């Protein structure tokens, strides 16, 4: 049974040139998808990677990445929302590429479906009450 897991992977000037995705595809036949990547001027940076495949193969692949010197943190990666702050305006809804933020057609409340959230963060700075957060 295949599944999808998300990781935050940090790199530095020693391994920034390497390709995490290549290792996962070539050596483990996994399906990596880079959701977000940043490189600072000093060569350090981080990316958010989703990896699809058999659970035990994913684990071995991630172990291999760690052994190659990358710092890997598994993410429960999705947006979190402080429901006590949300006022159901809907400003975030049209910004969500996966339709994880939706207006309920009956109640007109805004719902967050974390299963489909890819943690892109597009909604975060559109929230006028700082209810949406993405911790990387």
């Amino acid at each position: 049974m295949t599944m999808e897991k998300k990781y935050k992977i940090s790199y530095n000037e020693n391994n920034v040139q390497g390709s995490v995705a290549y290792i996962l595809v070539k050596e483990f036949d996994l399906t990596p998808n880079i959701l977000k990547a940043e490189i600072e001027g000093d060569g350090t940076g981080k990316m958010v990677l989703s990896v699809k495949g058999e659970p035990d193969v994913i684990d071995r692949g991630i172990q291999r990445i760690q052994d190659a010197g990358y710092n890997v943190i598994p993410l429960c990666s999705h947006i979190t929302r402080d429901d006590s702050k949300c006022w159901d305006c809907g400003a975030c809804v049209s910004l969500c590429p996966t339709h994880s933020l939706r207006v309920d057609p009956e109640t007109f409340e805004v719902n967050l479906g974390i299963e489909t959230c890819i943690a892109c963060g597009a909604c975060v700075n559109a929230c006028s009450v700082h209810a949406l957060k993405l911790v990387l």
Partner: protein
Amino acid sequence: MAKTYEEINERIRSRKAVVYTAEEIMEVVKKKGIEKAAEEVDVVTTGTFGAMCSSGAFLNFGHATPPIRMTDILLNDVPVDGGLAAVDTYVGATSLTKDPKGGYGGAHVIEDLIAGKSVHLHASGPGTDCYVRKEIDTYISLDDINEAYLYNPRNCYQNYGIATNTSGRTIYTYMGKLLPRMKNATYSSAGQLSPLLNDPHCDTIGIGTHIFLGGGEGYVSWQGTQFKTTPEEVNGVPVGGARTLALIGDMRQMDAKYVRGLDITGYGISMAVGVGVPIPILNKDILQRCCITDEQIYAELTDYSLPSGRSCMQRYNYAELRTGSIEYEGRKIRTSSLSSYSGARKVAGELKSWVENGEFELVKPIRALPREAKLKSLTEEWM
């Protein structure tokens, strides 16, 4: 048969008033017919809960010993007006702390006060023979100060535009985050629930109208700023921003869930206020206008990447907008509301229960709002 305010209030006092929200009334009229419904229904309640920057609050701090005439006043580091009498101020909703990235402003001070929180007051003044003190540093809450009333020079915009962005970069506007190349569009109206779309020519709403304001009771004090009657009408309601209301109400009655400070990225601070206006069903024409639906109310799509001269690209009705996407020249644009429709519904529902329970009577306006008004623009004269 026509009804009077006094007859309706009599029924409210004896808890016999028949009240529906502006959403519920459509079904009632469909079932009973307009004539019968107009006889039976006393009040239709409306509601809106959206951002309005032209909001604020007057406060009187009370005098310290020795007293100070405050000219430079900070509340939680937000500068508030020092241009009134010694210990009076006006907290403007959009006023910002020195650090604009703090995301905290006048609207948040107002929300915090209503929530019962303590707010840091730092004020200084020139020191005069009658007000010798030059500085004060203390904390205040609504329990410690004298008058505290919300005064919003403009609220309840009758209708508003739809914003999109044709440029190649994301822009951050008071109409929210607009993605490049028309990937999304935003709008802001409670549509069929909105007060001024249910009484589009202000036949019943006027100066003195008793309203729900931020969870407490308030009044319409004047026409709102930028009040105009000139926009084109479709189905009896304007297709853009037209009439507005100036509102006043006691902050001590309010609930912080209906008065929210907003930090709009790239723009600044604004305030969302829940406003509900009861419409007395004096006759069937008034009731007929309360039956307006989202399908009948149109707004105009404009390009906010243009600095000015934003002309209408296409009109859409609110039923289309609320589906989550609209079509423009064959392509799909996803839509976001910026005002809370579920909040507007709660406001209209809460006001309905107040009226049903005999806790809230209607007030006949003492003066009508302008029948005709147009806007002037600011011109620059070069000598």
